[in-house]
């Protein structure tokens, strides 16, 4: 009773401030927390007519169906993991290397031009990137094949029709679009390094490579840790929208991921409960990964996400 009265008093005292937050809080409740509640339908046979409260509870039926009955389950999990592992191996380190190279450039004007050009693809839409991939890689009219045929005299390659090319194309276009923009945080970290450190290293006879390794690189480590944990948080997501645009039935073998499957079963086939169960499996793994990564990072270094 006392507690309620106190809450009432506080609310009244700062009424204007709480009112200002109200639209935002409602947004989070309706569009973020209500869907979390909606996850219940993964354990039901949800039908639109009966709603969440009236639908029949079926326990783990949909999970069992996914893992034991769906022939593609293993393939979907493998593709999701592989695309993200490739991304982590090849895309994650590029901005680090690129930021060091940018930093080592001498001409101020040249440096600025290169940086700004490398940022640009970040602003192209996913549809445009996917469109460029699809048109450039076309075996009959695409410029990549025209160039290959002219330069090496080989037969045109049907890039998007061959499963073995998909991971390369996916990660390659990720790097092309995002590596330049990804340098910004690293460059900010480098800018924060005390110039005295470089002076001292020079006096001690450190060469360029040693300076890069022991000063520049070390100065970037906190940013790397944060970005690594964040990347793991999105680990299962991949750039799902891009995959949805460039994949096709010919390259499903390597391109079909959990999210694209959820989209087809949930949105296109309206199989809501089953698709939610598969989606939940994915977000649960993502959640566990980011929490675990943060815990490990917090144990061994001063930097962590929370």
């Amino acid at each position: 009773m006392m507690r309620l009265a106190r809450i009432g008093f506080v609310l009244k005292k700062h009424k204007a401030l709480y009112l200002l937050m109200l639209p935002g809080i409602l947004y989070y409740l309706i569009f973020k927390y209500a869907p979390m509640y909606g996850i219940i339908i993964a354990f039901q046979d949800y039908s639109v007519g009966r709603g969440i409260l009236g639908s029949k509870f079926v326990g783990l039926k949909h999970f069992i169906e996914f893992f034991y009955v769906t022939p593609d389950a293993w393939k979907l999990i493998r593709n999701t993991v592989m695309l993200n592992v490739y991304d982590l191996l090849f895309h994650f380190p590029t901005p680090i290397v690129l930021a060091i190279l940018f930093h080592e450039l001498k001409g101020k004007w040249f440096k600025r031009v290169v940086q700004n050009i490398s940022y640009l693809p970040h602003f192209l839409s996913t549809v445009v990137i996917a469109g460029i991939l699809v048109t450039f890689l076309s075996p009959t009219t695409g410029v990549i094949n025209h160039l290959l045929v002219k330069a090496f005299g080989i037969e045109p390659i049907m890039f998007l029709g061959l499963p073995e090319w998909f991971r390369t194309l996916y990660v390659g276009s990720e790097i092309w679009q995002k590596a330049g923009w990804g340098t910004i945080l690293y460059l900010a970290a480098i800018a924060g390094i005390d110039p005295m450190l470089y002076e001292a290293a020079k006096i001690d006879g450190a060469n360029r490579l040693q300076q890069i390794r022991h000063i520049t690189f070390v100065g970037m480590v906190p940013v790397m840790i944060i970005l690594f944990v964040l990347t793991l948080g999105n680990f299962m997501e991949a750039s799902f929208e891009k995959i949805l645009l460039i994949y096709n039935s010919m390259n499903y073998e390597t391109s079909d991921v959990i999210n694209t499957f959820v989209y087809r079963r949930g949105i296109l086939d309206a199989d809501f409960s089953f698709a939610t169960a598969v989606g939940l499996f994915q977000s649960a793994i993502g959640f566990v990964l980011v929490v675990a990564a943060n815990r490990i990072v917090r144990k061994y270094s001063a930097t962590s996400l929370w």
Partner: protein
Amino acid sequence: MNKQASIASRLFDALNVIFMILLMIVMIYPMVYVFSASISNNALVASGAVLLWPKDIKLIAYEQLLNNPDLWRSYWNTIRYTSLHTVLTLIATSAMAYPLAKRWLPGRRLILMMAAFTLLFSGGMIPTFIIVQQLGLLNTIWAIVLPSLISTWHLFIMRTFFEALPEELEDAAAIDGCGSMQILLRIVLPLSMPVLATVGLFTAVNQWNAFFNALIYLNDRDMYPLQIMLRNILIAGTNVQGEGDLTHLETLKYAMIIIGTLPILCVYPFVQKYFVQGTMIGGIKG
């Protein structure tokens, strides 16, 4: 020893410059090619005669697209969605970030935690779709604007900015009898133009480029934004010229890319510093 080191160092510089030039070529070539192909003769593009510079310049692809009512409608839709989204996002985000910047406000931590948790876990595609459907928002502009109204990153960027503003200014205004609302409108927001510009531009570019929400929430052709139109032409291979007419198929695709990207390319040089700034504020907060 010293001389050797300086030779190695110069070699490193030279290689670095060469690498950067290659990098710029790789970055720019696709964009130059798209532009060249969009103004060239369709047959020369399809057969591979156009590799860098335009050949047999023709603007027919642009003429055809500009005469297409669907394109104009989708352009208009994108402008509508983008402006409404940006305005509402700025209002809702700043209104929520301002109280959250007051360290003494009871309940502040709880609300911050509530927002931060959504970065780690979400209900997922289907439950969100069901909520939007149940609210009766399908096929309306609200299905595009509301589900992504507030970005938690942007909320945190704004809160960090507000926290750094000198409290004395607000105290002075409070003594003069201004309420919280007036302080926010008359003192805090005018001082926060850099962060408002950053968040506004991020939101606008994201919405301009977005296609997935439109794909799942809209099925009325008249509501399609530009990106859906782009997708249909570029990827699904929908013909915009009417049945069986394939004479400009290739150039049309490239012209469509240019038309869809031009506004962003035009404003980019003027606004890129805000983007860089915003990313750094957000990053430092981490």
